[in-house]
């Protein structure tokens, strides 16, 4: 069992993801001296905001954040909702960041539309979110096979899959790769996640940290213009 050294230390797991710089900027705007996270391991930040709270920060693979927080190894973390749904992590999600909001889409190479896809005897969907994809498509009754890969675009381009499910973070890249969106399946949001037991024990410190995030919340970026297949 992990031994806690200080009752008012908060351990924060940060995702090594596209939004990392936005998170860093927001924390710095809160007056949080951001440590150099290029080295692995925990980085202690002594009472960075003058609230009597020390932080231990570490950077990790985004899909692992939920696991670390759920098991209480980290009290707090930042994770996107589709990854939390994928791992079925039982956590609290009390704060939503204004950035890191993306549509979750079904996309396919140009020329494939929903009708032609549905006509296939077996639809192969590439995704890094197999569980979530299965749940989304279960009510559709499609005869489908989930191809669990990290790089869904390549899987479609090389013929391993017919379409893919994933976050649409850059419409330009999607168009450049020759893909179009067939359907919006949901929305992914970036959340501060909290271990349930940690909150009950460190209520005051976590409340203060959340208030700080609220105070320095940057304006939300423009919503993404979704490149649907115009012929569909």
């Amino acid at each position, binding site marked *: 069992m992990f031994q806690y050294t200080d009752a008012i230390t908060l351990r924060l797991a940060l995702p090594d993801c596209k939004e990392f710089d936005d998170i860093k900027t927001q924390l710095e705007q809160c007056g949080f001296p951001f440590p150099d996270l290029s080295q692995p391991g925990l980085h202690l930040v002594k009472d960075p905001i003058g609230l009597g709270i020390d932080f231990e920060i570490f950077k990790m693979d985004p899909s692992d954040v939920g696991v670390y927080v759920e098991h*209480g190894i980290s009290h707090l973390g930042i994770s996107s909702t589709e990854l939390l749904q994928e791992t079925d992590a039982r956590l*609290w999600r009390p704060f*939503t960041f204004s950035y890191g909001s993306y549509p979750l889409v079904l996309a396919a190479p140009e020329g494939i539309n929903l009708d032609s896809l549905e006509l296939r005897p077996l639809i192969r969907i590439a995704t890094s979110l197999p569980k979530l994809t299965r749940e989304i498509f279960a009510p559709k009754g499609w005869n489908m096979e989930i191809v669990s890969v990290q790089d869904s675009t390549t899987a479609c381009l090389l013929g391993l899959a017919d379409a893919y499910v994933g976050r649409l973070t850059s419409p330009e890249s999607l168009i450049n790769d020759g893909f179009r969106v067939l359907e919006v399946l949901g929305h992914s949001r970036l959340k501060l996640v909290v271990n349930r*037991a940690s909150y009950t024990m460190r*209520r005051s410190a976590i409340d203060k940290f959340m208030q700080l995030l609220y105070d320095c919340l940057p304006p939300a970026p423009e919503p993404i213009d979704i490149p649907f297949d115009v012929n569909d």
Partner: protein
Amino acid sequence: MSEYLYSTPPIDRSVALRRHVMGTSMHTFGAWGYREIQVPLLHHFKAVSSGFSEAEIERSFRVVDQDGNLMLLRPDITPLVAQAFSKMRAPRLPFKVSYTHKIVRVERSFNRDELESYQIGMEYIGGDPALADIEVILVALEVMNSLSVNDFRLSIADHKLAQYLLKSCGAPLRIRQDLQRALIARDTDELRSLLRKLGTRSKYVEALLVMASLRGGRRQLEQLLELFPNDPVVTTRINYLSKIRHALEELGYGEQARIELGELTGASYYTGISFAILAEGAMREIGHGGRYDHLLESFGRSVPAAGFSMSLETILQVLNIQDVLPSGLQEPQVEKLVVPDEDGLDVLKAALEKRRMNQPVCLVSPHKKGR
């Protein structure tokens, strides 16, 4: 195929610790007047399935016996106690029982699916519901304290109040489930967004946001009462929760037990107040309990009930063997007696003599191989 947890079997002190947890818990239950009950491992699926939700059945194991009957391996004890009770001719009420049983179901574990675990718990069937609710909480608190669980919190919620407010939103069942998930995750933004799509009246939106807020305690109850001062259901439930909160505070449990209306976890059959016990270091709640007034109805007998159960495997995650295991349970100094190939009777007699005096002995063979 799922990767299940076939762990190395516990041995020696690990088993002693398990026995200690089971023994201490059962002793506490017994001291509160709970008799021990044992329910079978295998049940006719048809006979008990009405006591389990679809999700619980999905997580369970079913086998076909030699006559072609579908059988269920016990996935949870409470519905099986309810079924056993409903078959009794004229049980005396309140019917108070406790148990420690192995259950078999797919349970999320540290990195794989866990199949078998011990469930330790008690059920209070019939009697005065208000007394039963407070007694179940007090017993759960005593069990945690007697096991020396450090820094645990018992969070109290109310399923009746939550279901009433969720239904009042006018949401269909599927959306209600999404709302409840957002509420449990304290995801107020998601909750607000779902309620906005439904066009829910602002008073109910406000109420659900209060329930989902991280600030529990008396203030949470007061805020709901301010929103619905004339609603009989809300006022009745809030007054009831306030009484329980007050009683626990007066009894010295104000720090360990707290109102947290968003903590709507636990079994699907809870209908009234419920609670979850949390401690840092455990992956999920150590234990949970609550009122289940309709579960017995599904077995043909309408009696209100409440109960509490905890997972032995989860509680072991937060116990420190050094702190918990009494010295009496630690490995005793065992005297080794070598039994010669011939004429070993004297040694056996000596061994029996020592055992009569309750001294530990260990018989060993003179051959190296056997040592």
